[in-house]
């Protein structure tokens, strides 16, 4: 799966879990995840949904340095076997 395809899937998953009103069509690789309406609990749901949807195994702690949607997509692309 390409990073673009991953971003498209992330948009859908984030829209479902986010607590804020966000213009999801405008979300791009540079969008900071912190601006997308997740709190300490809903971000756990997002990580769970990503693992389920994309079939990837990783620890939430591995995402400490991930700040933007693009960085998250790159991280997930790297986890693909």
């Amino acid at each position: 799966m390409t990073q673009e395809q991953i971003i498209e899937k992330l948009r859908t998953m984030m829209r479902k879990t986010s607590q804020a009103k966000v213009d999801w069509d405008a979300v791009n690789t540079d969008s900071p995840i912190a601006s997308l309406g997740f709190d300490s609990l809903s971000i756990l749901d997002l990580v769970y949904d990503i693992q389920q949807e994309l079939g990837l195994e990783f620890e939430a702690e591995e995402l400490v340095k991930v700040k933007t949607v693009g960085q998250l997509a790159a991280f997930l692309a790297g986890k693909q076997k």
Partner: protein
Amino acid sequence: MNNRRVVVSGIGVVTSLGLDETTFWQNMVAGKCGINRIKAFDIANYKAQNGAEVDNEQLASVMAARQLKASDRTVDFAMAASVEALETAGLKPADVSPQSTEMAVILGTGIGCNHTLLSANEGFEARGIKGVRPTTIPRCMANAISSQISMKFKLTGPNYVVVSACTSATTAMGIAYRMVKDGTVDLALTGGTDAVFEHRIYAGWNNLGVMAVNPLPEKSCRPFDRDRNGCVLGEGAGILVIESLESALRRKARIRGEICGFGESSDASHITHPSPEGQAKAITNALKSAGMTPKDIGFINAHGTATRTNDECESQSIRLAMGGETDRIPVASNKSFFGHTLGASGAIETIATILGLEKKIVPANLNLDNPDPACNLNFVGNEPMPVTAKTAMKNSFGFGGNNAVLVLSRYED
């Protein structure tokens, strides 16, 4: 202690008959039945194949229009009905007025957030520990229902969930009524919610031996009928905004009805088999709480589950408590319209009772073709009945020997 009058100013429903008060009531008066063959899962191997399900597309569309995110199905029902109840009470959910922030949220559920719990079980079976959603606990705890509503609408009064099987909503409304009556709060959001159509939970009901088996869904639920053979489950929520009369008048709210009394009791005998004495005690306690006698009751919205045991027992209970007035009082069950909605049933049926008092019509007792001689009451027939009565009674009886009864009136100055 205060002894304030308590009125109903907001109504919200999510049922198989409609996801708003108007549609729900129109369908009841028109005699439409919301029971169909169950679609939520493959029903082929179950004995009891009929149910009153909330339409998923309609629910999604109402949730989107009311700007709600899906959580557990039980919470979703309550949340969607709460928006309608707050709006009809003149309390805009998006901009809750300062008065309403002191609202209590007291809700009932029979089964609670079982969909979340059982999907955690599925996750564990599939992926082990990592397969369990990290937010399973805050999603599946029973009080998530009232807590999510309290948070969403910034309602800072007490919030909790009452669990007493099929009396849950009636008990919750009774507690909320007492809180408003004694001045603990001016307003309360109250009612109940349940979402029973999960294949493993439903298997438990299927195997319990109390469910109707009938190839014709719309004919399967037959309260008090000679040929009834069990209950048909439904899902949904009923939510009311109740408040002190002073608060409603101050806010110039549209008053829909009045709660005049609440009574409860326990059979203290058997976990599923009811007792006429226990139920009659709750009815008598409700009348006493309202300062009324059987002469004041214009009609009864029965628990009427359509099991052989319940309907016969309830008939005896009504006769025990209402004595010589019994044969005068019209009795009807709503469950042949939208099934037995368990922990939501008391609230949805209380709403139907309040609408009946307001519009002076008691909806029909669908499928009561041949009243069972063992249920010797003055039943409403297969057509709606015009009524002028000012006061009615709502019965709810549950597994566990839980009995709860409300006395409701049309509001008059």
